[in-house]
């Protein structure tokens, strides 16, 4: 009757064995649902806790478990009823970590004249000194320099954190605060002054209070690690110790919707106006990333205007496919540059120099075999419909387009670390699909060296003449096994030499380290794209599969020398994070952007002709008068453009160069549309070069130049402009 294996000596051991055998695995779908729902409750619960704290009352009964929980509360945590603890909890709650949860991250400003500034000062410094993820660019200023990214100096979050002190400290909640918090603070803080609030919040980045993006860097840095230095000695209260302990926690974001403040954007201040007489040469690297546009769309669709720093105009312009002339047999380069000069839509006295570069599109069937390693972030924060499930769907879309010679492997990091799918032929869709389905977010142990594993695997897979690429898909947690940010960048730059490309795909909002994505992709010879919808996945991974995955020109740099006899001033619109030093142009060691098969790249200069009423820079009184006269044969030339590129995998660069004619022509719809998008970007950045030109003008210009627009991208852009227009009012 009784089975033999249950007859051991210790009945407990038998029971244990039987239990282990009988133990079912938790249902994955329910797990996801439970975690998500729990997160929601957690978020709403913070509000009710705040309300409870105001009265120093015990939590009201909620739900059938409340009785048990209240009992446990009182048994385990008598301190909850102590007012000082409540205040401390309340204050901690507005600390950077608390803020993530609140999702209405208005700045908290300590009133002046108290001891707080002395405390918040070193704190405000500390986070800057330790950029949370990727710090400085490795080579020159090719890359998104997080250091230089404008950050509101008096970090509101950090200031708030400094307020975690033993005594109740005066706090001011500015008007921009969410509705709940000010009440709570008013109850716990002795002083609230609207006048002070207005005054002080004026010193902060206005955007910071508007949508929280501006507050990102310091907040994140603070919650990341710099807070270790925070002197927060609250005697006899364990909560006080938490900032220091919290430092080990990643600012992940597992709930969708409102914007928390741990996003970071890479940008420089807009390229300034340059005087041709002083700096006749402008040099930059091409940029085929499109992440900024997708981010912009996601922000606008949520009813928020993006932070100016989130706007990278070149990425907006380059988001759209343009019908530029394609290279033919007569072209030495694998791309065809086209330059047009036409009047600026927003200024009749200046001109736009529109440079369109169209890459060749080799026949798909001729393409080399492709090895793709998906490096997938499966950390808990990916547990969100807009993250891992979207990612899986996106990759499925792409699988259909791969050839049987292509190979796919999957590596995950965080949680279930390691190789989730050994290199598999793309024809074996069942296996690949099963591996994708099995991916689960959650788990927390660090997958050691996910990136190394991915690169090693890619190296293994690479056969002769094949192209290998690592596709890193993440929501911003770059904890991929190399802890030192600089080492990470160096590692990727090293791997670049092996010929393996890296693409970074961003998913979800809330924790997106846009600057890190940029830096990684730029260092890894790749592109960064942000995927917010399946539609966007289609665009990035399917429609542009060839371009996104097959480079036709590496390290493509552009240099324009303006003719001082014709052009007095110029400025490059966008490309701030891609500016190169003049001498870097011919230096093949300096990395630059890659051009993918069939991709087009657009760059636009706004130039002011000599003698134009639009000149902004007055001539110097004491400048030397005599200038060497320009040779007569150059009088018709506006400037001279040079493009340098390397054949994929080659070490030495090649050069094409040709003059730009000074005659202003009629531009086609393509260039006009690009100009409309550039103007849209300028509007969002709050540029002062636009004069009276406004959203209505941008909409009219874009609408008039939609062209064929086979995929509806341009129509969508017009919708976004309209949205921005109403949001800006």
């Amino acid at each position, binding site marked *: *009757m*009784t*089975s033999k294996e*249950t*007859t051991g000596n*210790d*009945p*407990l051991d038998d*029971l244990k064995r*039987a*239990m282990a*055998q*009988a*133990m079912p695995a*938790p249902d994955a779908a*329910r797990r996801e649902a*439970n*975690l998500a729902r*729990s*997160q929601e409750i*957690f978020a709403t619960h913070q509000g009710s*806790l705040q309300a409870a704290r105001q009265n120093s009352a015990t939590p009201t009964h909620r*739900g059938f*478990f409340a009785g*048990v*929980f209240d009992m*446990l*509360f009182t048994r*385990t*945590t008598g301190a909850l009823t102590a007012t000082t603890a409540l205040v401390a909890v309340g204050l*901690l*709650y507005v*600390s950077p*970590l*608390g803020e*993530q*949860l609140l999702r209405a991250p208005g700045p908290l400003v300590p009133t002046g004249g108290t001891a707080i500034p002395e405390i918040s000062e070193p704190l405000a410094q500390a986070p800057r000194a330790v950029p949370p993820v990727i710090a400085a660019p490795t080579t020159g200023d090719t890359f998104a320099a997080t250091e230089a990214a404008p950050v509101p100096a008096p970090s509101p979050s950090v200031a708030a954190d400094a307020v975690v002190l033993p005594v109740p400290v005066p706090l001011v909640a500015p008007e921009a605060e969410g509705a709940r918090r000010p009440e709570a603070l008013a109850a716990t803080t002795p002083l609230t002054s609207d006048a002070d609030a207005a005054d002080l919040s004026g010193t902060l980045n206005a955007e910071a209070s508007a949508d929280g993006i501006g507050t990102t860097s310091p907040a994140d840095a603070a919650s*990341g690690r710099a807070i270790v230095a925070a002197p927060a000695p609250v005697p006899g209260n*364990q*909560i006080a*110790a938490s900032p220091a*302990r*919290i430092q*080990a*926690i*990643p600012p*992940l974001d*597992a*709930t969708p919707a409102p914007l928390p403040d741990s996003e970071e954007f890479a940008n420089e201040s807009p390229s300034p106006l340059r005087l041709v007489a002083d700096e006749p040469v402008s040099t930059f690297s091409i940029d085929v990333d499109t992440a900024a546009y997708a981010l912009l769309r996601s922000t606008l669709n949520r009813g928020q205007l993006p932070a100016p720093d989130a706007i990278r105009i070149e990425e907006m312009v380059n988001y759209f496919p343009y019908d530029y002339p394609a290279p033919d047999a007569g072209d030495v380069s694998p791309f065809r540059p086209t330059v047009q000069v036409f009047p600026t839509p927003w200024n009749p006295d200046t001109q736009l120099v529109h440079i369109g570069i169209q890459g060749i599109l080799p026949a798909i069937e001729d393409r080399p075999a492709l090895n793709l390693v998906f490096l997938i972030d499966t*950390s*808990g*924060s990916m*547990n969100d419909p807009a993250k891992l499930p979207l990612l899986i769907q996106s990759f499925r879309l792409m699988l259909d387009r791969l050839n049987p010679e292509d190979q796919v492997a999957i590596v995950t990091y*965080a949680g279930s670390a390691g190789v989730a799918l050994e290199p598999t032929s793309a024809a074996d869709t069942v296996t690949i699909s099963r591996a994708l389905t099995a991916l689960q*977010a959650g788990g*927390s142990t*660090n997958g050691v060296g996910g990136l190394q594993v991915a690169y090693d695997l890619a190296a293994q897979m690479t056969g002769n003449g094949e192209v290998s690429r690592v596709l890193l898909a993440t929501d911003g947690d770059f*904890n991929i096994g190399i*802890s030192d940010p600089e080492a990470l960048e160096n590692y990727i730059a090293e791997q670049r030499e092996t010929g393996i490309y890296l693409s970074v795909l961003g998913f979800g909002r809330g*924790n997106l380290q846009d600057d890190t994505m940029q830096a990684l992709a730029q260092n890894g010879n790749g592109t960064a794209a942000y995927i917010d919808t399946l539609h966007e996945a289609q665009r990035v991974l399917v429609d542009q599969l060839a371009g996104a995955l097959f480079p036709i020109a590496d390290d493509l740099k552009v240099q324009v020398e303006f003719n001082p006899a014709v052009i007095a001033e110029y400025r490059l619109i966008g490309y701030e994070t891609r500016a190169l030093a003049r001498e870097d142009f011919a230096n093949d060691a300096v990395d630059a952007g890659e051009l993918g098969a069939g991709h087009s790249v657009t760059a636009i200069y706004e130039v002011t002709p000599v003698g134009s009423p639009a000149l902004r820079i007055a001539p110097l009184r004491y400048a030397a008068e005599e200038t060497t006269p320009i040779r007569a044969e150059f009088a018709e030339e506006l400037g001279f453009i040079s493009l340098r590129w390397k054949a994929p995998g080659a070490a030495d660069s090649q050069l094409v160069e040709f003059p730009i004619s000074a005659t202003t022509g009629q531009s086609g719809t393509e260039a006009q549309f690009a100009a409309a998008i550039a103007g849209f970007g300028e509007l969002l950045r709050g540029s002062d070069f636009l004069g009276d030109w406004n959203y209505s003008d941008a909409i009219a210009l874009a609408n008039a130049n939609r062209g064929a627009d086979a995929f509806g991208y341009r129509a969508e852009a017009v919708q976004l402009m309209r949205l921005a227009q109403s949001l800006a009012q």
Partner: protein
Amino acid sequence: MRMEASDEDLAMAAAGGDATAFGLLLGRVYSRLFALCFRLTGSRAEAEDLTQDICLALPAKLAGYRGQARVTTWLYRVAVNAATDRRRRQASYGRATEGWGDWEIDRQQSAVEAEDATDWLHRAMAGLGDGLRDTLALVLDEVTHAEAAEILGISEGTVSWRVAEAKKKLREIREKEEAS
């Protein structure tokens, strides 16, 4: 490294209002929590429901975590209490349940005896009664007697006595079955 924050660190952060830490912690302990719920209830469906109940109630609970106990100890206490509560509710509603208790009813009604270890497990667990069963649910997960005592709100001596008692009963059950 970020991912290496201890459970306690995460819990403290979550108690301070950090949703991220909360999500991370819950993701980390979910499997263990589910396993405990299964040992407490004896049925997969019941374990799923109980786990869900606990997940939904944890946000409110966690604000009370003060770092005095290990997170697992604290969490197990929540789970055991939730299980007790659930049993009470089901008893008062007279609802049919499955699981350890249910199996006992089944066995009484139909004398069908299955032969595999899983059924022995059910027979054994069903024969123990709630108190001993809850204690074993913890002890089988390498929880020390001291911790189990803390979780159950009883003295360590009582835990040890219960474990001994459970062993005795298990032996009895086995002997009875071998005799039959």
